[in-house]
């Protein structure tokens, strides 16, 4: 069992509370399950943007789907505004979905190619039975203005839009039911840099205008740093570090976070000179995660204890939690020394 992240008492009640969440996918007779998410706890507080970073296969998207109630947890609970989502009757569940909306990575796949833009945006209103046909259309046009597309786009089809425009339609649709919480799953990963910048700026504007609370999932550290107020680092189904944006980005404590930051592409000539060789190896299979600390097979600091003992969560700086036996060494400025040779290299 991975220990749950200690949740500190908050002045305000969280909009979303995730408690010891696990999602295991059945792989058929006799096969061990795939542990996509394996013991994640966190609170999403009103007004904050929690950025979740991690590599492919770390369980980020599964986590997103659980929060918007598209995926049933195997263990643990998801509380939405104080309600345990598992106890909701179908009608209450439909209403609860108004509070949490999601925008996906692929803006094309997320839009029905046979529907016009205004119908796409108004669809959540129809499903939630909010207003009538005329007011739904008006709302769609208003949302098109808010995402800086304008009423001209209302009659178009998705194939008539560029990738960035499609993603703006997806955002408008997610906002149609005025959710309190927006979950963004790699929403700019498929876009060109210049388009991405426009979408990220729009996000910041909309967050303010709509008073949104956001769970922002991305593999891109620069994007996380730009949008987040708090950052969680995910590795192989678990969080390994959670803290304020400046703490995690500027003074990371977990060796995985530190390695990610070092690997992240930086255009600045001085920052490019890497102190160490890049992190070796690949993320292990979530079917058979390593014992003890899951990062230990790639960790330059791993010692025997890391294989034997699951690291407990420790709050090493106020608000900065980390699950690593040796994280305190980073407080004293110990370097992230690379082992001489990766364990899996040539025989």
């Amino acid at each position, binding site marked *: 069992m991975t220990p749950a992240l200690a949740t500190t008492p908050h002045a305000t009640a969280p909009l979303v509370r995730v408690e010891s969440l696990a999602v295991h996918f059945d792989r058929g007779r006799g096969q061990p399950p795939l542990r996509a998410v394996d013991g994640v706890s966190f609170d999403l507080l009103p007004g904050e943007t929690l950025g979740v970073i991690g590599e492919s296969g770390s369980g980020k998207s599964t986590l997103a789907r659980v929060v918007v109630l598209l995926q049933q947890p195997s263990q643990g609970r998801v509380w939405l505004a104080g309600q345990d989502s598992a106890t909701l009757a179908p009608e209450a569940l439909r209403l609860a979905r108004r509070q949490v909306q999601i925008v996906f990575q692929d803006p094309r796949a997320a839009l029905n190619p046979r529907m016009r833009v205004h119908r796409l945006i108004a669809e959540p209103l129809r499903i939630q039975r909010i207003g009538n046909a005329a007011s739904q259309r008006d709302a769609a046009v208003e949302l098109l203005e808010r995402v800086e597309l304008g009423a001209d786009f209302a009659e178009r089809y998705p194939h008539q839009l560029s990738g960035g425009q499609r993603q703006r339609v997806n955002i408008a649709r997610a906002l149609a039911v005025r959710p309190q919480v927006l979950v963004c799953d790699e929403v700019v990963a498929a876009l060109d840099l210049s388009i991405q910048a426009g979408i990220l700026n729009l996000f910041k504007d909309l967050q303010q205008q709509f008073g949104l609370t956001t769970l922002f999932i991305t593999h891109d550290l620069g994007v996380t740093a730009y949008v987040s107020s708090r950052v969680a680092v995910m590795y192989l189904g678990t969080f390994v570090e959670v803290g304020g944006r400046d703490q995690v980005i500027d003074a990371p404590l977990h060796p995985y976070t530190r390695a*990610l930051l070092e690997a992240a592409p930086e255009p*600045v*000539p001085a920052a490019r000179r890497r102190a160490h060789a890049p992190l070796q190896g690949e993320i292990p299979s979530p079917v058979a995660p390593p014992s003890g600390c899951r990062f230990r097979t790639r960790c330059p600091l791993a010692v025997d204890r890391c294989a034997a003992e699951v690291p407990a969560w420790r709050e090493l700086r106020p608000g900065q939690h980390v699950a690593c036996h040796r994280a305190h060494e980073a407080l004293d400025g110990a370097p992230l020394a690379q082992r001489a040779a990766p364990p899996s290299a040539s025989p």
Partner: protein
Amino acid sequence: MDAVKVTEAAPCQPAERAPVLSVRGLAIATRGGVQVTRDVSFDLQPGERVRVVGESGCGKTATGLAVLGLLPSGLTVAGGEVRFHGDNLLNLPEAALNRIRGRRVSMIFQEPMSALDPVFTIGRQLSETLRAHHRVGPREAKERCIDALDAVGIPLPRQRYDEYPFQLSGGMRQRAMIAIATICQPEVLIADEATTALDVTIQAQIIELLGRLSEQHRMALLFISHDLGAVASACNRLLTMYAGEIVEDAPLDDALLRPRHPYTAGLLAAIPRRQQGSGQAGHRLLSIAGRVPRPGAMPEGCRFAPRCVHVQPRCHEGPVSLLATGRGAAARCLRIDQLALGGVAA
């Protein structure tokens, strides 16, 4: 044996350094005659590593494919030269080109799963390349292939040799692709979005690998990517492409710190970065308004003018040529002497 016929005189460049690859005035068009790229010229010195950046649809991939004579059927070379050690690859008969492709000039692609053949083992695809170019017996070929897999950092290469592409992870597939592309120790490697689909830690490993291979064998590297933040570390020169033209060609650090073309500067300003309090509510990224014009609908004058914040009436008057900015650099902008553009702050 592999004497390639010299078709024309030595390259026109002053021969203080002999480029391994020299592209001159390359123009690509659709079969219908619509221009895709125009006046693309650059040199690759032995061991040099050049980044090509630009948004989707700027002609980066088409340029890479044209160098190897691999343009898809809808596109054709409408003019220019691609000189490899002085020979114009565009005029070589297919048989001569086949002796160069995969052996002396090689290419890797973004999606290793679609570039690898799913029904053949990794070993078979490697040895196929090796034995197409060199007389080696099956046993020696196998050993050299296993060495090649080892050289690109694939663990248990002897076992991987007999595996199929689906049995490898994305990062391992890309390593296998690199092993295939470099097993003949090419002098030029064109990498088209080779790390785009990979995670950052894997991306860093692949970039380090390519840099190491380039250093060990003086292999020139043409690194095509739409993402300016990525792979900067492995390169020493930056080519910016916009709407089918090279708009800036400069040493990498110069281009990053003091870009001379507004498009390069615009791309740099759009990168979300973790420094400079980028998390603050007031901080905004600069995006480039509008989008890349389509082939066939190019603006009359400077092609970037409709999106440029520094535009003046004269920018619309006629095509702009690449203007020297000193230090072997050039930019396609009429206002190079007037603009002080911001790069990435150190």
